[in-house]
């Protein structure tokens, strides 16, 4: 930050004036929890996509908090699919638009949570990718089934405590590592796959813009912290999202036709995994000081190490 500039009063500063801030296409008044990362992610996506976008949304927090009858927060054509089939519904919308000759200069987006995408909706997603629909699929990854009360999903990280992966005498939390969903999607050889985070909103919006400029199926997985499920104070949503990236636990990168084309380096800014984990109640059991807890932390350090090597983040 330039201190000299910040010490001068507004009128003395010379800079091109930006247009006033406009209302988001995800309208205010939605019922997302205070500080919800998923609401932030969806707002950022919609404001890039613009009003000429058709959206199909799977069941989950995003759908529930945005559309309590008789209200809707969406300011574009929007439909609630089932939990498992937003990709199929969006594919149908795209096919319908083509049949009617109305497919020019519009976007079609399918979206869902990590449970809706990586678990129950993975079949419909795969079909949509395979058939080559001109649809962007956005997965909001808050690392559990939040809307039904924090059950683990295929994208819940190793050792995280959820209601179905509790910490106790015989358990350190979730037994599995995050499923490599972007890798599974990329294996369909589609033009564009990216991971992004609400910790880096400018990067996120660049990726959405890029994805929408490409014809064919594309996929973005966005890491969206959830204060309720991850158990942390609401003001830390963006901070925690950044730390996930800076520790190497969440790599953000782009893939084109199955090949890694770009990744966000962390280099000298790398942080120890503890800085990310200790802010969240879902990892609290790892900080008991017991030798076994230290062993678990070491396993998580190895996950970060593996990501840093695999995606060239150093």
């Amino acid at each position, binding site marked *: 930050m330039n201190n000299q500039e910040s010490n001068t009063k507004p009128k003395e500063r010379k800079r091109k004036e930006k247009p006033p801030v406009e209302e988001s296409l995800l309208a*205010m008044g939605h019922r997302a929890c205070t500080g919800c990362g998923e609401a932030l992610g969806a707002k950022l996506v919609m404001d890039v996509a613009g009003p000429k976008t058709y959206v199909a949304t799977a069941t989950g927090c995003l759908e529930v908090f945005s559309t309590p009858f008789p209200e809707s927060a969406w300011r574009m054509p929007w439909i609630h699919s089932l939990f498992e089939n937003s990709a199929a519904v969006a594919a149908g919308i795209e096919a319908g638009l083509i049949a009617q000759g109305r497919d020019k200069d519009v976007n079609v987006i399918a979206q869902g949570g990590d449970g809706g995408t990586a678990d129950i909706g993975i079949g419909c997603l795969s079909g949509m990718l395979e058939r080559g629909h001109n649809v962007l699929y956005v997965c909001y990854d808050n690392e559990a089934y939040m809307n039904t009360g924090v059950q683990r999903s295929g994208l819940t990280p190793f050792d995280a405590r959820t209601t179905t992966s509790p910490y106790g005498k015989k358990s350190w939390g979730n037994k599995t590592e995050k499923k490599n969903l972007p890798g599974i999607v990329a294996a369909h050889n589609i033009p564009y796959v990216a991971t992004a985070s609400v910790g880096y909103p*400018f990067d996120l919006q660049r990726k959405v813009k890029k994805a929408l400029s490409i014809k064919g199926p594309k996929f973005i997985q966005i890491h969206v912290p959830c204060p309720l499920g991850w158990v942390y104070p609401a003001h830390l949503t963006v901070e925690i999202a950044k730390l996930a990236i800076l520790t190497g636990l969440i790599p953000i990168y782009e893939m084109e036709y199955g090949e890694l084309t770009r990744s966000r380096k962390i280099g000298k800014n790398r942080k120890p995994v503890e800085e990310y984990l200790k802010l969240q109640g879902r990892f609290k059991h790892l900080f008991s000081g017991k030798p076994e807890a230290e062993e678990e932390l070491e396993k998580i350090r190895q996950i970060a190490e593996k990501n840093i090597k695999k995606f060239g983040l150093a």
Partner: protein
Amino acid sequence: MAKPVGIYVKPGSSKENKTGSWRTERPIFKHDTCTDCRICVMVCPDGAVFGSNYIYDPDYDYCKGCGICAQECPVDDIEMVPEVR
């Protein structure tokens, strides 16, 4: 004529619901050191920060008081204070 299926509601009608009542803390935008970066606008999950040209303020009808804007402001120009009603 084909009968419509499903439920239709007005776009953006969630604005009927004034979430400002949820606040326990209130962000105060000081307009002191602002560099016009608009990070506060970007990071608000409720899209509740408006303004232009170095002067930004939350819409208190909807701001839930999460404090993300204050946490992320790079020049500490936003302060959270207890909400009093």
